[in-house]
């Protein structure tokens, strides 16, 4: 069965791009959320294998959403997506339980590799 993924980003453009990359790699995108609150809610509903989580978002930032998702499911596999200049959040997110980081703008090969490692790890 294909690995299921939830994409979280407040930009439709980013979600669409990421969705295309992931589908190309054979993932099944089962949920998309456009803010932190929706991400937490949809995670509970859909229980995806993987989550890509943007940091700067309305209604709960990615970091707040990460905390709640990890509290609900300590086994959650979450990959944080961030833009250049937000390295300071990396440490916090990793301590909270994020498995990996990918940097925007997305490099399709890099995204594929990081997600594959996270899914298997």
């Amino acid at each position, binding site marked *: 069965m294909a690995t299921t993924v939830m994409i979280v980003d*407040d*930009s*439709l*453009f*980013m979600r*669409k*791009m990421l969705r295309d*990359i992931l589908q190309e790699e054979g993932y099944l995108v089962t949920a*998309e*959320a*456009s*803010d932190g*609150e*929706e991400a937490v809610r949809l995670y509970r509903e859909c229980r995806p294998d993987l989550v890509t989580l943007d940091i*700067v*978002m*309305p*209604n*709960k930032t990615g970091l707040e959403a990460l905390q709640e998702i990890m509290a609900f499911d300590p086994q959650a596999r979450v990959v944080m997506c961030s*833009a250049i200049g937000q390295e300071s959040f990396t440490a916090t997110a990793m301590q909270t339980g994020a498995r990996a980081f990918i940097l*925007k*703008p*997305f490099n*399709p090969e890099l995204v594929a590799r990081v997600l594959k490692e996270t899914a298997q790890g």
Partner: protein
Amino acid sequence: MDMTQYKALFLSESREYLRAISEQVVALEQSPSEPGAVDTLFRGAHSLKGMAASMEYGEVVVVAHSMEDLMARVRDGGLKFEAGVADLLLEGVDLIDAMLNDVEADRPVTPPPGDYAQRLAGYTPPPPRKKAEKAPPPPAAPASPEAEKAKEAPALDAGTVRVKTELLDHLINLTGELVTNKNRLLNVAREAGSQPLNDAVSETGKLLRALHDEVMKVRLMPFEAICDRFQRSVRSLAKKSGKEIQFEITGRDIGLDRGTLEQLVDPLNHILRNAVDHGMEESAERAAAGKPEKGVVRLCVSRDRDRIVISVSDDGRGMEPQRMIDAAIRKGVLTPEEGEFLSPRQALMLSCIPGFSTAREVTDVSGRGVGMDAVNAAIQKLGGTLEIESEPGVGSTFTLKLPMTIAIIHALVVQCGAVKGAVPVTAVLRTVELSRRQIETVGKRQMFQLDGETVPLLSLNRVLGLPLGRFPNGILPLFVTEAKGRRVGIVVDRLLGQHELFVKPFGRPLSRMAGLAGGATLGDGEIVTILDLADLL
């Protein structure tokens, strides 16, 4: 990865962010403690940067990045949000907007001025000047969780889809053709004398009406979509004229047809400009009149049954009907005799006559009268009406009433010579059958009495260059409309009744002719011309 497939989405979403940014900048300036606004601004710039980086539009990235950094300084409390910051952000919005237009047109992107990034990075607020006694606005605290919750979530509901606007136009078109065809069926049923067929067609007619309403609803966009332009222009005008103005918009969520919305921008901007530029007094003059120094301009949108009502009101100096009349006489657009006939309401409408202006001086931004005739014409083209109310010393209100839809209209069909023309019922005040005896001749003009008012008569045949009607039985059919703020009786050969018409715009060369608003097909297949009276008279 081929990024061209994402270009359209990039452009539309980037423009949404730009709109959100300019709205929030203006909102923050009006109330510096606006919850969440600082965060929204930061996020908007951040998202723009991320998207532009993905598309590899380096110039956009540079500008968005500088804006993001500036907002980060505000968010983290190091920098106060004030006019200087607002100006820089709005400048950035304009720069990115221009670059997006380049991207859309496949032109090389105009690089932003080289010092933009430096100016933002090195920005320090000017030292406060004379208004130092004013208490500083509360620092923009990071939004509390409650405030975050209170904010409207721009979440994409799982039950929504994005649809190309062309598709919607196509749907409207098909629905309109169906309405025309239903009228044709209705004729056939009448000729065949078949009651069951008649009933079935009537029922189809009702369903079509419902279908039309639903399709129109899909085309509706909230008024919100064009609000930021007004906020921007009022803000910059107030700044230019040195007036203190509070600008309020209500009814942002009211839905209007997309086509109507686009065509409202210029007329509303013009009315707002007039309000700021001419309606509003200088602070000193307001203080002397015992008014608060800060003037208020309100833009209200509401729905009244099947009409949209938009009003622009100010609490400025108002207009004197007599001064309008005097000015019109002085400028030769009105004779003193005509002036005596005018009611105060009609006098105010004089501002809609081309070439009329009461502005003491014409500024570079607006001159009352220069464009009010254009405003009035644009509103009539939308099937709407304009009313002006004013009380000297208290303020003025401009009210626009617009139909919900402009594609399918109810129109009065009239016969003039061999031509059938249609006039939107919104432009018809009433129809009259006038006996020759009731016509009075004043000077060279023919007039008649209507509700105690003397109304001039005009022949539509003459306006259209057609042979004049004969009226052997001495009865002249006419309809009353309003032109240049005055009621006019328009005489035609015959009044053929009211029809539901699907209006289609003319192609060239007909589209270039004055007075023609489009064409429609009647149920019997005959073509009628929709007349634009404001243009014709």
